[in-house]
């Protein structure tokens, strides 16, 4: 089964996604892999800076209310998300947040990680995803 792994970033699990800007340029974003973000039945897979959501031409969904590290109403965008090494290419709901965790460019929520098999696959210095 296809698998992709990344080194820990500041000792925290990281996943790297590819976004497509409106000018066609593809950009990579390093996200904190956070199983504590959201629940398995949530509809929003990721959190990214609003500038990325707009630069990638996402259209908006109804805003959502956040609690915890973020509070209040936040815009939600539909963005094309790719993980080329896994052949993953889907439109996903992404919450626009004003700030990202230190050193990261967004958050991969539990519902996103749970689309895959995830973990360190026996190596404590890495984190990865694999398709079932």
């Amino acid at each position, binding site marked *: 089964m296809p698998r992709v792994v990344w080194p820990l970033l500041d000792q925290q699990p990281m996943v790297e996604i590819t976004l497509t800007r409106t000018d066609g340029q593809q950009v990579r974003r390093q996200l*904190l892999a*956070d199983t*504590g*973000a*959201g*629940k398995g039945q*949530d*509809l*929003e897979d990721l*959190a990214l800076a609003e500038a990325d959501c707009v630069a990638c*031409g*996402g*259209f*908006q*969904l*109804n*805003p*959502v*209310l*956040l*609690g*915890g*590290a*973020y509070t209040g109403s936040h815009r939600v965008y*539909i963005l094309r998300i790719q993980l080329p090494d896994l052949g993953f290419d*889907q*439109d*996903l*709901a992404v*919450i626009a947040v004003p*700030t*990202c*965790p*230190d050193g990261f460019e967004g*958050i991969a*929520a539990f519902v996103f990680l749970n689309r895959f098999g995830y973990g360190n696959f026996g190596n404590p210095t890495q984190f990865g995803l694999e398709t079932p």
Partner: protein
Amino acid sequence: MTTASEIQVRNQELARAINEEARRDPHSPYAGKWVGIANGQVAVVADTLGEMAKELRRIEPDPQKSFGVQASRDYTKVTYIWGPR
């Protein structure tokens, strides 16, 4: 001429009305569906977010003139993100 922001206000008002209808009436044609709105009108009714997104982009490529809602969802429910900021 209608501006993009005026269109977006109309889109959001329609999305709110659709969600209220779907939550009030389980037999509404929008109940449980993903509804794509473009230029103040319903453009797509789909079973999945992916279908709705693909069709809505085809109909209205300008994201400032389109909007989506998952009808029947309780948008007052809070999603918690506990991670560091």
